[in-house]
């Protein structure tokens, strides 16, 4: 299976453990990833919130780069997934807009043709590889590990754009946790927002939102929480100490990126997955699995 790999800014800056674990897991799963090294940021919410044409143009460039490689785009970031998926759909549907954006792309000798799709690593695992085939590759079932799924808004909503899972009762990440041999923790917060997009501008508000999710997962006796998006990860992991201050409560919940969890199930060593790179210590998870860090 071949993909144009779009890691996104976070995997290249604040979450190097995400990029590293994704690459290690790809090898194990025979995913052939061609990294889009020259691609830009998809703009998070900020560029689309301020300049629509720029938002369309930058992402059309990334999509055109993947088209040139004749590969679909696979990302490990939910917000990037939504941005790229929406731009892809908009420009495929709207010929007039496509002409306008292509006139911009002409300045760098590229053209958006609308021949490729955008997907997320979670979807590749369940749709392209498939639960059954994946189960066969699980070398170290994560038995007894209670994992709180954290889907992330932009992999679920808006449904008519993304369409993979049901935003009201999502199951994909729960299924994946089961395939790896672990137990998914049930809690309402799994389909809710992490608050990331106001973390820089209204930190108190963001911490109240992420605090709700973390305390719920804690209350349900989760051993760790798994994220499909490095932005959720930032709100829940490095900012967890700040959340604890807001809540006046110790949480200490390890927050693990999706490829890190998959890698554990596939039998990779914690170091290969850079599990020492997460902010909240992942040692309790490794201890439960009787693994050396």
């Amino acid at each position, binding site marked *: 299976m071949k993909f144009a790999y779009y890691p996104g800014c976070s995997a290249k800056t604040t979450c190097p453990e995400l990029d590293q674990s994704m690459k290690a897991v790809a090898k194990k799963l025979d995913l052939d990833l061609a990294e889009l090294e020259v691609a830009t940021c998809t703009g998070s919410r900020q560029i689309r*919130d301020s300049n629509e044409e720029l938002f369309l143009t930058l992402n059309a460039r990334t999509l055109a780069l993947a088209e040139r490689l004749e590969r679909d785009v696979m990302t490990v970031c939910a917000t990037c997934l939504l941005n790229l998926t929406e731009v892809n759909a908009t420009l495929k549907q709207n010929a007039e807009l496509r002409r306008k954006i292509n006139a911009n792309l002409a*300045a760098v000798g590229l053209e958006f043709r609308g021949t490729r799709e955008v997907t997320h690593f979670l979807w590749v695992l369940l749709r392209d590889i498939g639960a059954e085939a994946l189960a066969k590759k699980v070398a170290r079932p994560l038995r007894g590990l209670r994992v709180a799924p954290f889907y992330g808004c932009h992999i679920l909503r808006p449904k008519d754009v993304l369409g993979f899972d049901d935003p009201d009762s999502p199951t994909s990440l729960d299924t994946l946790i089961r395939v790896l041999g672990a137990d998914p923790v049930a809690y309402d917060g799994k389909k*809710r927002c992490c608050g990331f997009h106001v973390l820089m501008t209204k930190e108190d508000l963001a911490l109240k939102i992420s605090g709700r999710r973390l305390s719920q997962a804690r209350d349900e006796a989760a051993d760790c929480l798994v994220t499909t998006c490095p932005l959720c990860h930032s709100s829940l992991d490095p900012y967890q100490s700040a959340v604890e201050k807001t809540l006046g409560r110790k949480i200490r919940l390890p927050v693990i990126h999706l490829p890190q969890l998959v890698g554990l199930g596939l039998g990779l060593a914690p170091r290969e997955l850079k599990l020492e790179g997460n902010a909240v210590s992942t040692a309790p998870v490794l201890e439960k699995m009787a693994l050396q860090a």
Partner: protein
Amino acid sequence: MTSGNTVSAKIFRYDPAADKAPRYETLEVPLEKEMRVLDVLDYAVENAGVAVGYRWFCGVKRCGMCGVSVNGKPVLACWEKATPSMVIDPLPNMPVVRDLVVDRSALEQATLEMEPCLKRKEPYESFPEPLTHRDFEDAYRLMTCIECYVCTAACPVLSDANHREFAGPASLVQLAKVALHPKDAGERVAAALKGDIYACISCYECSNVCPVGINVLEDAIEKLKRRCAAQSESNPGAKHARIFTDLIRKFGRIHPPTLMRQSKGLMQSVSKMSMALAMYRKGKVQVRPQTVQGIEEVRKLFKAVEKDQ
């Protein structure tokens, strides 16, 4: 006891004037074909002697009066299919008058304060006004809003963070409806900022629940934010969006330490020092920004876009 032929409905009951605390009343209702949540409530009152209070008027997704929460999701009682097992609560984010009846007046006040009526640039000439579909497209999309406040009930900024400065999505839809009207000349950016539009965390919960299918975040809030970003000098949310964009122009990708310093200011960033240090030790902080390969291409694209604007 959810045999599939019956509905087990657990209904919220509370009369603040008489009851010490809310309670739930559970009843079994025979499940009819095409039964709606509203029919279950009607059955409770008419056939089961349960005097639950609820509000409705049109029964056909027009009046916007019948919002309730079913199994945690805000919906219209007259438009939501009954399922074998339901917990029916009043809409969150508004005080309860009795049972499922809520008091929307604070939210309606927030809408009124946005002055959501057309303020024309030039006087109304005559009918028909020369407007094309294209001119009218953005505003038209919001005209189907029935002001049911179901979106506002779903908003976590209000429910999870209790951030009451935020006007909420329903009020912002009303504001956007006039702001996007081609003949409008009102002070809409000021109104949006007064409603604390940048408290919106872009979670799409509002879009997910809107019974008439408005993508509230993209078709209303995001369009208002674009205006704020272009017109507000000082609002931190608007500034943040501009700083972010400039970083992409420079490096092609985000450099979190620079973003934080420029957006929060030096003093506030210093307060994050211990966290930054912990992140640095984990290899999560690159002191110098990395530039994506082919940044010249990116800058050319910025130029091409800005030429049009």
